[in-house]
């Protein structure tokens, strides 16, 4: 059972949740990212995700360590899918369990923000008339000051 995983297969929400449920947890917060059809007025036909797999899994583990350090007695699991995904398919599932509910929300939110900062995964949007790697243009986010390790929200 790998708590932090990149997969080419359909993600089972229950399976990710089961990785974090334990007797001292009273709350589990889950974030599920799905493929949305309309983005900025354009109709997506499908998405393609690519990852630098070994580093992506390392970075997901790192997020898990950050969460363990910040939220006592929390437990985290993240699975991110790669490959081609159709509309409404699940791209990522994050589950965080904590003894009390407020922390589960905070930690799960932190996880998704960090994924978007430090995990080498890329998304290509495909439309009927073209495609684009998200972020691969000057008008979208690009890093200017070296590594993003230190850019995480301090909560």
């Amino acid at each position, binding site marked *: 059972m790998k708590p932090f995983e990149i997969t080419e297969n359909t993600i089972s929400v229950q399976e990710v949740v089961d990785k974090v449920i334990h007797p001292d947890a009273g709350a589990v917060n889950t974030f599920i990212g799905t493929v949305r059809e309309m983005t900025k007025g354009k109709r997506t036909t499908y998405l393609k995700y690519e990852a630098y797999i070994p580093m992506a899994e390392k970075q997901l583990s790192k997020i898990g360590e950050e969460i363990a350090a910040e939220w006592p007695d929390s437990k985290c699991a993240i699975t991110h899918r790669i490959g081609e995904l159709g509309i409404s398919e699940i791209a990522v599932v994050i589950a965080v369990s904590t003894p009390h509910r407020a922390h589960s929300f905070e930690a799960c939110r932190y996880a*998704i923000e960090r994924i978007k900062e430090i*995990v*080498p*995964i890329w998304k*290509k949007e495909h439309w009927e008339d073209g495609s684009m*790697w998200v972020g691969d243009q*000057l008008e979208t986010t*690009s*890093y200017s000051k070296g590594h993003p390790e230190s850019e995480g929200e301090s909560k």
Partner: protein
Amino acid sequence: MIKVLLFAGMQERAGKSEIQLNEPHLLVSEIKRKLETQYDFPQMFTGCLSAVNEEFADDDTEVRSGDVVAFIPPVSGG
């Protein structure tokens, strides 16, 4: 030999996902300059991060034969 990995848009522009450099050691910045010349793409690494052996690295990180260097365009997971 130094192995260089390219991803996403960079991989498509270079037309390959992996490049081998027959050098005993180089700085990350030297690798960048080499590839920009080779692929005639002066701004190839704009907005890109670098990783050496799966850890983020800087332009002045030294890379040795056997190391794996990856260039990480702006990520868009989640």
